[in-house]
């Protein structure tokens, strides 16, 4: 297993360098002068030149790339031109929400998807199967932002005043806020790493509210996450449902399942212990691949539900030509994506011993 992991990690290296390079090139190729974008169209030449000097934009690209790699190795992603704050701080601020959104939508899509898929496979060629698969097909064809807006309308306007009413936007009801852990714990001058984690956990709904015991904020925050999570998770849910169905149907036709049934094992046990374990391999792959869709969906959904996450930051930074932020956040998303795929590979090796020996 360790050997397998090492090999995978080594294979990742060229892709990682490639990603850094692509991000770097894309960001430099964005047309328009960041100085004009930041200081306004009428910025004087002198102001611009000192601006470019300050952010190292005067050096040639090779020097900039080298400096970028060197700084990144030390955890320094540069400084945002727009906010005059380290990009790593912005990451710590924005990432928790997107992670929470991704986790909740992944939970939703996996649970609902596997459930629908199993039902559909067990009731094959019945009306239940047809309806479930129709639902899956519709789910995979819906624009995420449309689903989000329509749900917001349904739950905030149509269901207003009923127990089903849910908030259509924002992270917390206005007036509520998450505590700043640094203030709470009277940490005056934290180190850079401490600072990162302090900001990260201050902005992480679950960790923060559990640490401070603010149950009202936890409940409120979770309610705000329901609609976005469903919106983001619907496409992956549909794909997981279809994959579960076909994978389970294939396994159910195999001899060892007949053997398990013949020896008198309860039907439920045949499914859970024997069939699902083998059927899970393609399902896990799909879950990994869909993380990309989740991250893309998160960008759109954060826009629809006005959530301060990675996606809204990325889009607004592109429009403001905030190089370092675009660079840092694109890199971050690609990294998460790669890590999830690595986890998927590892879980294969866990589920199917043959792969480990390969």
């Amino acid at each position, binding site marked *: 297993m360790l050997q397998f992991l090492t090999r995978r990690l080594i294979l990742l290296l060229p892709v990682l360098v490639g990603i850094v390079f692509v991000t770097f090139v894309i960001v430099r*190729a*964005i047309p328009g002068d960041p100085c004009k974008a930041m200081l306004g169209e009428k910025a004087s030449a002198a102001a611009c030149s000192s601006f470019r000097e300050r952010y190292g934009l005067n050096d040639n690209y090779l020097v900039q790339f080298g400096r970028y790699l060197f700084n990144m190795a030390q955890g320094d992603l540069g400084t945002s031109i727009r906010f005059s704050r380290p990009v790593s701080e912005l990451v710590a601020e924005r990432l928790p929400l997107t992670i929470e959104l991704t986790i909740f939508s992944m939970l939703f899509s996996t649970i609902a998807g596997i459930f629908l898929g199993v039902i559909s496979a067990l009731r094959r060629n019945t009306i239940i199967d047809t309806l479930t698969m129709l639902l899956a097909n519709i789910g995979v064809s*819906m*624009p995420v932002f449309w689903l989000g*807006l329509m749900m917001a309308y349904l739950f905030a306007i149509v269901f207003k005043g009923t127990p089903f009413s849910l908030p259509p936007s924002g992270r917390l009801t206005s007036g509520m806020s998450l505590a700043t852990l640094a203030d709470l714990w009277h940490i005056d001058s934290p180190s850079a790493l401490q600072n990162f984690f302090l900001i990260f956990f201050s902005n992480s709904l679950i960790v923060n509210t559990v640490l401070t015991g603010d149950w009202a904020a936890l409940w409120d925050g979770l309610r705000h996450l329901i609609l976005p999570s469903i919106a983001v998770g619907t496409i992956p849910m549909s794909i997981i449902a279809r994959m579960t169905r076909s994978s389970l149907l294939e396994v159910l036709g195999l001899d060892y399942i007949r053997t398990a049934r013949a020896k008198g094992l309860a039907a439920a046990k045949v499914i859970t212990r024997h069939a699902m374990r083998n059927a899970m391999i393609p399902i896990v792959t799909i879950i990994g691949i869909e993380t990309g869709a989740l991250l893309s969906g998160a960008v759109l959904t954060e826009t629809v539900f006005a959530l301060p996450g990675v996606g809204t930051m990325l889009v607004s930074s592109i429009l403001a030509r905030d190089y370092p932020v*675009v660079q840092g956040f694109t890199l971050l998303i690609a990294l998460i994506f790669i890590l999830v795929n690595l986890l998927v590979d590892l879980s294969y090796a866990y589920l199917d011993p043959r792969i480990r020996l390969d």
Partner: protein
Amino acid sequence: MSTISSTPDALPKKKTYQRTSPLREGFRRLLRHRSAQVGMTILGFMIVIALLAPVIAPYDPYIRQMDVQRRATPCIHFLGCPADQSEHIMGIDGNSRDLFSRILYGSRLSLQIGVVTITFAIIIGGLIGAVAAYVGGWVDNILMRCMDVLMAFPSLLLAIAIVSVLGTGLINALLAIGIVSIPVYARLVRSTVLSVRELEYVQASRALGGSGFHVLINRILPNALTPLIVQGTLGIAGAILDAAALSFLSLGAEPPTPEWGLMLGEERNSVFNAPHLVFFPGLAIMLTVLAFNLLGDGLRDAFDPRLRGN
């Protein structure tokens, strides 16, 4: 005396088997495939709408209607809307234009967007894949690692990044979606070429003096056609969704183009007062994407036995 007929009784007619080609067999399966039937019906309907948009549309999609309120709800005479009001079956948008007419015209754009981007991706991706597999060695390695890097980004995010480089606008958005779709087809063609390159019939063709190009185009690539058509049909669905998303984020089509994603994006803040302005464009996107998805599933089941489930 019985007469002996000079001709023997006609033998039972020999049963003839019609020669069926795999292609014809595939089409037969496609026409009987239920989700393909639904997909083709919706798609046929969309194509008719797109072609006849100027005939069907009751109003000009760009012109403001003077006699109505902005964001007015749908007015259908048949359902009890007073006859003295003009009929707008999907209501009026924020610029006082007839939404139904704009949706009809939007179908032209969405169908083109899907087909154009994926054709682009298939041609470029197919070329990369074929060259990588056929030449092999370091060329293969470099090309495929480039594809890996492209695939390391979630596709919509990469498309957003590319649009930010090229500048916003529909053409650039399409180019971006085309570029991010390339790796799928490159991998597909590469794996097909690799799997048939060493087969006897390819070697035979080579032994007969076929040039590398001839062997690649006429002997190897036809094998990739089926998976390309299947993947391409599903890809069109994805491309339409991504294009709508870019327009929604105001990185794609620009006003006053009747593009469904843009129409939805423009009215997203009025979803609580005028939900119909968000509902109908989204429904149109969903139906079109659904049609391509269903057709793609049907094509896969009908033509690609390897991928067919039980």
